[in-house]
């Protein structure tokens, strides 16, 4: 009951901020529309809807990190968390109360992107459904990263690190906009050591119906997701104790 109430509060705080809706939903959709328009006017296959959409859904999830981090940092700075720490709420209520409401947001965001892509020419197949579900482990990574950053950074810092830096990292190192092999070398190696490109490849494999193709990418995503969540819990508990 307490967890449910706190989760509902998290959802309201995020959904009632128009900037969150603009960035979380509006920006990925604008990119999808814009890049599809470019594709329609160039003779080569730059942004084919079947490979672009999975990339955009993963890129959109990077904004969840910003939402989670900003909310936790704001709650810390305004002492709202301090007030709640002096109530019967437990550590699990806090962590799950921030995390759980963001999961349906992630799935909803992915679903809207895929539905928009259908209008832009994406072939309707049953694989869209598992592709949306495959965003679940990816969202754990991004939300975990948000909780982690919100536990240690201030509101202004979360804007810079989770907003500008992370969205750029997700964009450049995920292979959404260009094939990483085109750059190659250290850039490609670094990109493959991070989860972004694996998340996109996993999504692309599932959407194309190549379910066997999720391996080994899913292990990278799950590994980074588990690490981000574990570190987030650790740092959240540390700042909770440090109050």
């Amino acid at each position: 009951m307490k967890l449910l109430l706190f989760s509902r509060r998290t959802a309201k705080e995020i959904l009632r901020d128009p900037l969150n809706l603009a960035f979380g939903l509006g920006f990925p959709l604008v990119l999808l529309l814009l890049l599809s328009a470019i594709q329609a006017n160039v003779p080569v296959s730059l942004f084919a809807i079947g490979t672009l959409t999975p990339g955009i859904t993963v890129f959109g999830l990077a904004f969840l990190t910003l939402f989670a981090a900003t909310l936790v940092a704001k709650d810390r700075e305004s002492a709202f968390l301090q007030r709640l720490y002096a109530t019967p709420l437990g550590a699990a209520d806090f962590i799950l109360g921030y995390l759980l409401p963001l999961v349906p947001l992630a799935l909803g965001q992915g679903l809207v992107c895929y539905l928009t892509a259908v209008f832009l020419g994406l072939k309707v197949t049953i694989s869209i459904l598992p592709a949306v579900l495959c965003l679940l482990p990816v969202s754990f990574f991004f939300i975990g990263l948000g909780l982690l950053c919100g536990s240690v950074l201030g509101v202004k810092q979360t804007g810079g690190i989770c907003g500008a830096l992370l969205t750029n990292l997700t964009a450049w190192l995920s292979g959404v906009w260009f094939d990483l092999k085109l750059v190659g070398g250290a850039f490609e190696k670094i990109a493959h050591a991070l989860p972004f490109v694996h998340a996109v490849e996993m999504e692309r494999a599932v959407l194309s119906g190549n379910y066997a193709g999720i391996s080994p990418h899913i292990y990278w995503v799950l590994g980074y997701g588990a690490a981000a969540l574990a570190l987030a819990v650790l740092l959240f508990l540390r700042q909770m104790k440090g109050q």
Partner: protein
Amino acid sequence: MGDSIKKQTAEAIRTVGLTKRYKDLTAVDHLELVVKQGELFSLLGVNGAGKTTAIKMLSCLAEPSEGDAFLHGRSIRKEMAAVKELIGISPQETAVAPNLTVGENLELMCGIHGFSREKRKRKTAEATEQFGLGEILGKRAGKLSGGWQRRLSIAMALIGEPKILFLDEPTLGLDVLARSSLWEVIRALKGRITIILTTHYMEEAEALSHRIGIMKDGKLLTTGTAGELMEKAGKERFEEAFVALVTKADGTPGAFPEKGVVR
């Protein structure tokens, strides 16, 4: 035996050598204090005196480095869950959920304290009336003025039916009218609940408190009613008494702090 139980229940707070150290800094130094039930006790001191740290330890937000404190006989070190059921806190910052309405903020706090739906509605209606929040009940908390946010903050702290209310600098940064209005709110609570108030406004402590404790450099220098402290310092104005007591502690080592438990 009977006397001992009576004495224990009459005490809202008893601290025993309560100490908080941060590396080289001792923020609170062996605090010995007893606050009676229903008392409004103010902790007064200049910045860095240790008031907020003392409150943080008493409200289980900071772990003591040494010593313990008992709230209605419950240890802040060993019985944190039980202590949290007894307290409400209004932190120095406004500490409200900005995108929730005033009503939703109040209901959230009720829910966190495990109240049923019916009780949540009843308590929200009571708090709304008590704090005059009716006109702004549907407004988002983040859009309110500082004075209204503080008023809401205290209402949120009280709605969980605490036995002890901690008010950390409740009027900090407010204009004269907002401060005066908040004083009325605090006065209305006086005697009905134990209140620990920290402030560095002399007139606030003098006007609101049953007793006042003066802290400096983590130590409790002295306690008493405003009249007793003025008498002790040989001054006619409370502000002068405060300055005299604090500087006396600097100038004549050994005169303060008092030894033993301060009642």
